[in-house]
């Protein structure tokens, strides 16, 4: 028993959770616990009260319409991974989930927990950013929507205010003739990536009409590669200069050096990982 003592509350609605969060003292939301409990066990953090979201049905819904898929924050990673309709509508999400930890972690970890945690090496924040997802957020003053571009502010830091919770994530659906790929380098399967990418390409009338490249492990937040995306758009798939796409994607980034890899290594490998992922995404888009 390593975590410091705390009071435990189990609200059954978003409103109850939000008002519990607004109380006195250090309070924190508990989702799947797969990132929060380790840091509590290491006594890096301690709280007066933990607010467990597991009993709130609203947060466990998956809703798919013609143009978007909305995933409740408390949908487990394993549930999303096994949800065929969701993975068909948002292929990048399903592909990325296979890289998140191990199946035992995904059996508890949630989609919202991963995104709210905002680890810069995590897959799902990069997927949200690449797809221009919108985050639905609830606080005491009501509900609001935050775009992925505005959501990820820094390492483990998001646009969520202290008394707000993430309720769901809405992923746009790209439609036919699009292809997606996730590529990453990690020491062992299931480890956090040293560097990786989640990208999508849509072809229209023989040319690339939309391109999105999300990067993780390359900075203090997930990142987009707008210059490389611009190079792709309007190009015939056969004429894509993959080397240039890769080097442009990492061009002016300055990833950190740490025990896992140097900054130079991250950039060199990042360029290749992007080139591979874009290749696979284009191939998939060409298949229809």
């Amino acid at each position: 028993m390593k975590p410091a003592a705390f009071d435990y509350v189990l609200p059954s609605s978003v409103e109850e959770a939000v008002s519990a969060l607004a109380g006195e003292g250090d309070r924190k939301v508990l989702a799947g616990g797969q990132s929060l409990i380790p840091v509590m066990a290491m006594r890096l953090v301690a709280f007066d009260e933990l607010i467990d979201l597991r009993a709130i049905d609203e947060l466990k819904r998956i809703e798919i319409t013609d143009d978007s898929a909305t995933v409740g924050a408390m949908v487990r990673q394993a549930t999303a991974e096994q949800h065929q309709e969701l993975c068909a509508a948002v292929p990048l999400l399903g592909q990325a989930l296979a890289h998140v930890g191990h199946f035992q972690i995904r059996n508890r970890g949630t989609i919202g927990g991963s995104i709210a945690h905002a680890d810069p090496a995590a897959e799902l924040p990069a997927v949200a950013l690449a797809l221009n997802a919108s985050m639905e957020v609830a606080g005491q003053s009501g509900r609001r929507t935050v775009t992925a571009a505005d959501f990820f502010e820094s390492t483990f830091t998001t646009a969520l205010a202290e008394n707000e919770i993430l309720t769901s994530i809405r992923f746009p659906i790209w439609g036919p003739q699009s292809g997606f790929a996730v590529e990453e380098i990690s020491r062992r399967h299931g480890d956090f990536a040293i560097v990786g990418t989640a990208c999508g390409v849509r072809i229209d009338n023989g040319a690339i009409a939309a391109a999105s490249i999300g990067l993780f492990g390359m900075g203090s937040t997930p990142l987009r590669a707008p210059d490389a995306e611009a190079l792709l758009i309007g190009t015939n798939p056969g004429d894509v200069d993959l080397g240039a796409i890769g080097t442009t994607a990492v061009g002016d980034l300055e990833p950190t050096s740490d025990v896992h890899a140097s900054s130079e290594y991250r950039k060199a490998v990042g360029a290749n990982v992007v080139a591979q992922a874009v290749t696979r995404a284009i191939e998939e888009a060409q298949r229809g």
Partner: protein
Amino acid sequence: MADITIIVNGTVHQLSVEPRKILADVLREDLGLTGTHLGCEHGVCGACTVIVDGDAVRSCLQFGVQADGASVTTIEGLSSADELTAVQQAMADHHGLQCGFCTPGMVVSITALLDANPDPDDQQIREGMSGNLCRCTGYQGILRAVRQAAEARST
């Protein structure tokens, strides 16, 4: 303290636990089920793997209060006292254990892996077992044991 009701290996228990007590400690200390091992206590090693409502999970990354109302199967609940499961037999046959510390978590994870995918290929076995660390065997015997257990369970 919080009052919880959990079913462990088929038996209903009503317990009063501190919220900060992880499920592994509830199983080991309150229920005396010391087959569930704790290695790292922060989610990395997989020694503490148990099955909660059908899902293999790390019992060090779940508080006992979160398991209120749940049904838990531990290593003790997988087989009867005088009989080994196909997974346990395969681990013995292939020397899938040396010190045995990681073994309860390995056996629970292999069992869950094969329940979800009865005929995994090599890559799927390696990915499936990537969440369980062993400091002794070098893993080869464990991987062979998964293959044998998959075959034995399918016949």
